[in-house]
């Protein structure tokens, strides 16, 4: 049947879910998806605080340019929109005050 605006949500097959941690808290993500997407699914939008005014920031340009979604993994700074979630991924945020 012709659908004007199909909903494909249920027709997408994804890899199995794995665990990763973000500031010590455990989350589920499909292996191989971007950290940006995994955090969006977890409704965790506040990824970082800006230096200076310390205002909350999150994924913005989604293509590795704006540097708003950067996190740290093993001491290295990386954009969450360019980082694939893999098993044993432990992410440290650049938030000043961690949400309690």
């Amino acid at each position, binding site marked *: 049947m012709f659908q*004007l*605006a*199909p*909903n*494909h*949500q249920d*027709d*997408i*097959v*994804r*890899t199995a879910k794995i665990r990763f941690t973000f500031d010590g808290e455990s989350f589920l*993500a*499909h*292996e*191989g*998806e*971007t950290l*940006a*997407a995994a955090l*969006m*699914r977890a409704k965790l*939008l*506040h*990824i970082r605080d*800006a*230096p*200076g*005014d310390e*205002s*909350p*920031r*999150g*994924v*913005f*340009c*989604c*293509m*590795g*340019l*704006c*540097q*708003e979604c*950067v996190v740290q993994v093993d001491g*290295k*700074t990386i954009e969450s*929109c*360019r980082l*694939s*979630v893999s098993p044993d991924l432990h992410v440290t945020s650049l938030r000043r005050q961690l*949400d309690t």
Partner: protein
Amino acid sequence: MITDTDIAVIGAGPAGCNAALLAAEYDFSVVMLDEQVSPGGQVWRAKSPAILSAPETPESVAGESVRNAISQSNVTHLGGVRVWHIERSEDAFVIHYENAGVSISLSCRCLVIATGARETIQPIPGWTLPGVVGMAGATSIFKQDLIPIGSKMVVSGTGPLVFFVAAEQQRLGGEVAAIVTSNTLLDWIKALPAMLLRPGLLFRGLRWITAMYVNRIPIYWGHTVTRVEGESSVSRVEFKKISKDWTPQGQPRFIECDCVSLGSGLISAFESFQLAGISLEHNSDLGGWIPKQEQDGRTNVGGCFICGDGAGIRGSLAAETHGKLAGLSAVAFLGAKINHSIVKLRREYTRAASFGEAMSKLSIPRPGLTKLTTAKTVVCRCEGITRAEIEDEMNLGAQSTISVKSGVRAGMGPCGGKFCQTAITDLIAKTKSCPVSQIAPPTARPPLRPISVNTLAGDFDYSDLPISKPSPL
């Protein structure tokens, strides 16, 4: 100089892929470098490895087709690498790129730059809140990760992209609270003749809009979101009607939502062109500052060719043929006898470009939109610099993008001015009462993306350092 490859192509979108494929047909060695793991660029961005199967879309089909073509060709595709510097010498270019934390150089006789576009977003109060994403950015998440953004999205912006973002959000199971678009229905009717050049796309667009009406999703034509509200993420937006020149006016109204997608057109990602030594010129119809260019992607730098949206915003269809033409220019430069019909390609390009330029015209912000940026609005997101701070600096005498950057650090943060320079240029032009075309962007400086000290320094033993004799006492 003996080079690593004959031709290097930077960017694997529609332009870069087509340039590389055509050049490879002439038996030259071609290396194509791209920031994404798989070819496709922003418009044909590949699905993440987390997606095992998914329904096709026109973008995924076109993307798969070009990815297959690249993998079956002799083009060497370097995916997931980031070019950070371009050095030029008499008869060659050296490209420096990062691959998995290591900096590698690649020399080439001929360089094709197809770095595409990035979006421009007029700064508004609250645009730094988590939950605000660019419109092109949203499509990138949709294409790569196939998830909706937030649970209830407001899409606000210019041009055709608003409808694509809204349609994709719904297709992937998200909700759209409203579409707020600066364009009026009349703007679209005026663009009809150009759209009839691409009836397929016209039909697709009409289907999206009809679906919105059927699903009772409000479309506010001739409106714009003027403010985003929320504590640590988006809770609602304020929007207003806009005048003919897009000045917001009238009573504010509000829409509850948890995410907002904003966009006011695309601009050339021109920094690579600057590093390669190509001068820029201003063309407001093609997105502002673009590289100076001649026919078929030739430039004032011998051996360096450009194509796609980076050369001026004309859309992906034009980018494909522009890429082919630039690829042919490159092989001709290297001495090949051309056996493709350039005349036919040029005709195809002109046709595609006129459609793309009509779409650009709908997307290019009109002057009134700059009034969205209030005095207290953060303009430079990285450094948290407001419009008032930038204006104070201009009142102290700063008259150029370089002096504003030096004085208040606007554009000195990690993004390198990619998301504030357009707004800053507008502010300077307004203060000086001169056209934007007289306010040149700052000098581009490497690295093109932030790169770590370890990557740039590499494996260096202290005894290997070329320590020269000390300076005179």
